[in-house]
């Protein structure tokens, strides 16, 4: 085909032209010949010409004209840059729908041209570079700044092409010279070119290694103080590439005080720049405590929180959240991040469309939450978290429950808010969905436990649990298999729920009492297996003494209900409660005295308590410095001594009066002066010579107290179990 031949012919012509400028010999692009190197090292072409052309003999004038024009058109289409000024090419296209032959040629020709150009330049620039590198290396170290500048510019140009760039990175002397030039120059443009060179080199492994080996890292770190934005950008990006892909780079950046230079850059305003900078910080500080402390010392938390608060670029928010996540496990950084408003800032990003950002923020918030229990301004965050309790994503549930559990810890404002915005119902649903997942169940139950005590809406929460059918689900958590942290939290929650009288029957109906009693027995048996009090059993990180305390405490409150206390007493628990009075754990003494105090309201139970020998330990407990313990002990003693001999009641009175004076020193002083010596009170009760106590000296003016007490509590007076609870003061 004539047009194809034209193409070949044109191509050959062009290459021939090129050959004249660049080579002395044929590279073989068109002719297909190979380059051969003989023994002396000179190259020559082993070309054998085999040209096939079809000549048209005797072209008519018209034909010749037409051919030339076509040749010109082909040349123009392929090499528009070769058009002589003034030359115009007329298109022969008559039908817009039909491409001319030239037009159809143009595309493949263009591809061919591009390929040719690439091939030519590759070989050309590589050669050039190889010859030029030693020269340029010298020039970069020249005393004349202008020379250095020019050399840097040329090297920068050379990095634009792959072939020459490869040559550069293979020369350690060249890379070192660039690094030195960048470091030592006072000229901005030189610094910029040099930084750009290193940046280009940093996209290949070889280049990274070359930069690393020639001390590029300290130099690049120094460039982070440059006032020139472009230098900053090249430097941070190059360092980023090194941190990502070059072994040893992290250590080198840290040693060069890279962190101290990077943290202040958080004040810059270019989001893409910030994204790279924060990613560098993350790479440097992950798993490295010292780096985290350096970031803290340089104001990292404030800078990072500022970004979270003020930017919208997703990638930047994500990289920043990753740094905060890394810092959030550091005990020193945690309070700083919280103080800088980190909780509020992270909370802004929980409802967006970026899943990865939301999840990072949640994990970070969870880590920070135990340091944020006193923070203000978390209302919005709390509401969002309650909303997230409806999620099916286990990670989201784990975080939301965990954060809520901590933020409601000892914070009555947060408790009230969460209760008011439907937190109780949402937490119950989370418990139901948690199943065996302790990472969700434990914090969810803890959060409910927090919500059901010690704040103005505690009663609201206690009722809400029942109203949203939470009681059966909660009681079920006491069942096997026991994960002790969940059991411990549940026992505490049940205790709080029982504070609400309306919950007492539902708790009983759900089988709370037998479950609690069995857990108590099991835990108590575990504690008894150890010979000395210093040994404690831990199961899943929970001491069995805590379970003993928790179960007894729950039973104490449940025992306020008369039916419940009958059920508790009927399970043979009284001997155990009396034994617990001897516990070395003060809280256990308190709750066991408390439950006995409630049980002793029933006469039969009071007798059983007495029969178990409770008086002795209770007398001891009257001396307790804990007023709650002393109160319960006194009350039990009153109740079990109702039917006793007057001698017994006297002794109780004496002990009580003496013991309770501990809380009232002035009264003790007066009493001490008013009555005979103490020795009399310590007389053996079997001794018939028990000195007459002042009570028996009372005349008719005043009724003897014990007689009065005796008269009030007549055995025939049935105690009405339906009596309403006295209102707490």
């Amino acid at each position, binding site marked *: 085909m004539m047009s194809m031949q034209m193409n070949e012919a044109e191509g050959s012509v062009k290459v021939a032209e090129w050959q004249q400028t660049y080579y002395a010999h044929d590279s073989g692009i068109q002719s297909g010949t190979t380059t051969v190197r003989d023994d002396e090292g000179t190259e020559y072409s082993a070309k054998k010409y085999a040209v096939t052309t079809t000549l048209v003999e005797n072209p008519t004038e018209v034909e010749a004209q037409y051919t030339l024009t076509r040749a010109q058109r082909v040349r123009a289409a392929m090499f528009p840059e070769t058009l002589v000024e003034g030359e115009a090419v007329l298109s022969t296209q008559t039908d817009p729908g039909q491409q001319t032959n030239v037009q159809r040629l143009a595309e493949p020709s263009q591809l061919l041209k591009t390929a040719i150009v690439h091939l030519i330049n590759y070989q050309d620039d590589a050669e050039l570079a190889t010859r030029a590198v030693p020269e340029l290396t010298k020039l970069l170290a020249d005393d004349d700044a202008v020379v250095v500048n020019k050399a840097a510019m040329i090297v920068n140009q050379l990095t634009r092409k792959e072939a020459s760039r490869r040559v550069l990175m293979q020369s350690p002397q060249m890379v070192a010279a660039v690094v030195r030039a960048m470091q030592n120059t006072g000229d901005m443009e030189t610094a910029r070119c040099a930084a750009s060179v290193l940046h280009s080199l940093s996209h290949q492994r070889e280049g990274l290694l070359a930069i690393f080996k020639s001390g590029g890292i300290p130099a690049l770190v120094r460039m982070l103080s440059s006032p020139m934005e472009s230098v900053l950008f090249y430097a941070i990006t190059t360092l980023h590439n090194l941190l990502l892909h070059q072994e040893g780079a992290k250590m080198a950046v840290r040693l060069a005080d890279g962190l101290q230079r990077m943290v202040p850059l958080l004040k810059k305003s270019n989001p893409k720049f910030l994204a790279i900078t924060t990613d560098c910080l993350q790479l440097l500080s*992950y*798993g490295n405590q010292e780096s985290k402390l350096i970031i803290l010392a340089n104001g990292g938390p404030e800078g990072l929180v500022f970004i979270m608060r003020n930017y919208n670029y997703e990638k930047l928010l*994500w990289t920043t959240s*990753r740094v905060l996540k890394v810092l*959030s*496990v550091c*005990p020193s950084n945690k309070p700083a991040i919280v103080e800088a408003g980190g909780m509020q800032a992270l909370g802004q990003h929980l409802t967006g469309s970026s899943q*990865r950002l939301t999840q990072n923020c949640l994990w970070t918030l969870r880590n920070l*939450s*135990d340091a944020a*229990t006193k923070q203000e301004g978390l209302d919005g965050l709390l509401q969002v978290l309650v909303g997230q309790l409806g999620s099916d994503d286990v990670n989201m549930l784990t975080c939301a429950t*965990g954060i809520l*559990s*901590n933020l409601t*810890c000892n914070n009555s404002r947060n408790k009230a808010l969460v209760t008011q915005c439907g937190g109780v119902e949402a937490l119950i649903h989370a418990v139901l969905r948690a199943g065996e997942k302790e990472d969700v169940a*434990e*914090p969810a139950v*803890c959060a409910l*436990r*927090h919500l059901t*005590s*010690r704040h103005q809406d505690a009663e609201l929460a206690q009722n809400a649990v029942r109203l949203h059918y939470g009681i059966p689900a909660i009681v079920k958590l006491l069942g096997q298999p026991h994960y002790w942290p969940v059991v411990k939290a549940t026992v505490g929650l049940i*205790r709080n729920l029982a504070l609400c009288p309306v919950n007492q029957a539902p708790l009983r109906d759900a089988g709370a009492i037998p479950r609690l009693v069995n857990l108590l027995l099991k835990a108590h048996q575990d504690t008894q297996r150890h010979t000395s009090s210093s040994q404690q059993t831990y199961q899943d990180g929970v001491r069995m003494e805590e379970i003993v*305390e*928790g179960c007894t405490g729950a039973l104490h*409150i449940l025992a*306020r209900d008369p039916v419940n206390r009958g059920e508790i007493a009927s399970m043979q628990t009284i001997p155990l409660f009396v034994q617990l009075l001897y516990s070395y754990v003060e809280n256990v003494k308190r709750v066991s005295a*408390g439950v006995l*105090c*409630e049980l002793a*309201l029933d006469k039969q139970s009071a007798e059983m308590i007495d029969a178990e020998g409770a008086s002795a330990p209770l007398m001891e407990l009257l001396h307790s410095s804990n*007023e709650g313990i002393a*109160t*319960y002990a*006194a*009350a039990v003693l*009153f109740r079990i001594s109702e039917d006793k001999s007057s001698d017994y009641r006297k002794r109780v009175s004496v002990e*009580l*009066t003496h013991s*309770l*004076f501990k809380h009232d020193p002035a*009264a003790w002083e*007066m*009493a001490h*002066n*008013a*009555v005979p010596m103490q020795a009399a009170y310590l007389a053996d009760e079997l001794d018939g010579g028990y000195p007459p106590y*002042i*009570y028996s000296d009372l005349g008719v*003016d005043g009724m003897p*107290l014990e007689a009065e*007490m005796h008269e*009030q*509590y007549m055995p025939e007076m049935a105690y*009405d179990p339906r*009596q309403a*609870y*006295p209102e*707490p*003061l």
Partner: protein
Amino acid sequence: MNREEAPGKSPEEMYVQQKVRVLLMLKKMGSNLTPSEEAFLRNYAGVVNAQMSQLPQHNIDQGAEDVVMAFSRQETEDRRQ
């Protein structure tokens, strides 16, 4: 007879005072009282009034304190996306 106004208290007065305090404390902590205990308080209403102001203002028996959970024990690396 109004014993509470006597300059030096007799032992039985001390006893009444202490028992009233115990019963008031029980009520404060949310516990129940027996009918005879309630009657005792009614009988010694004067002592009750005197004692009310001397009860501790803080809550005595509120159950276990809230405790935070420490979650930041270890670092987790997320996928570089």
